């Protein structure tokens, strides 16, 4: 896979829109079918499409809570790489999810996470999941990630 190199010095080195398809092409994120939705300077939003095999209680049409946890974990990772403006291996240390209401049946769920602080060894995020209206979330999250060092660029565009 060709790696696009920025040609101008002010070009961002980590582009969530370009990186998401690489990071979600396989593994757990690929299994969930996560897709890029939008991003800002220090936040990224991913989409988890509706799927009937991700439901929680049998006989009810409510998305399980596990996929929301995964969605927020992944969106948080991307938000951290966006805030640092580069890809580097990180690992979740602590993740809290408050499920404030069930997601609507048939609705895609969007996970938006913001990285509000990066230190030499840790990154702090907060975020929410919603099913169409970010002012009416289905979940709130808070998490801490640790940088784990080592090389793992996974062929991510601009992940040098």
């Amino acid at each position, binding site marked *: 896979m060709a790696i696009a190199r920025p040609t101008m010095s002010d070009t961002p080195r980590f582009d969530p829109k370009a990186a998401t398809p690489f990071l979600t092409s396989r593994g*757990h994120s690929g299994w969930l079918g996560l897709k890029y939705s939008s991003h800002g300077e220090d936040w990224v939003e991913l989409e988890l499409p509706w799927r009937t095999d991700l439901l929680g209680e*049998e006989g009810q049409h409510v998305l399980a809570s*596990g996929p929301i946890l995964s969605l927020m*974990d992944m969106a948080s990772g991307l938000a951290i790489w966006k805030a640092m403006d580069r890809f580097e291996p990180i*690992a979740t240390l*602590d*993740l809290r999810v408050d499920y404030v209401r069930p997601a609507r049946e048939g609705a895609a769920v969007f996970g938006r996470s913001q990285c509000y602080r990066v230190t030499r060894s840790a990154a702090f995020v907060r975020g929410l999941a919603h099913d169409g209206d970010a002012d009416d979330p289905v979940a709130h999250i808070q998490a801490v990630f640790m940088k784990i060092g080592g090389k793992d660029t996974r062929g991510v565009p601009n992940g040098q």
Partner: protein
Amino acid sequence: MANEPGDLGVLTPYARSLGIELAHWDDGMPVMRVAFDEAVEGRPEHYHGGATGGLLETAGYAALRAELARSGREAMLKPINITVQYLSAGKSRESFARGRITKLGRRSANITVEAWQDDPARPIATAVMNVLMADSEG
């Protein structure tokens, strides 16, 4: 799964889809297992934090269902929250998780869960969950 110390009931479609299954019963509580395959992989050869969280959550619900069945209660379980602590990287082999009911109230339960790979005494992740128990209709 019938005639076990507690009735586990059916796993959620999500848990089945992820490949989570009942491994065995330990002291009246279900021990859940998931094999390492692409559906749980994050960075290469390691568990995705979300998959580990899903295993912990599933084991937490299974523990609560077993406890409710033992006391003859029926309820619809709704998640309130979960806090996951990731202690060490999940490597490319099967993982197990087991829940413990810290407090069983009338409307909510507090559950602690541990996940491990080779040695239950060396957990790779732990979780605390609060679950709402709504009345089952009928």
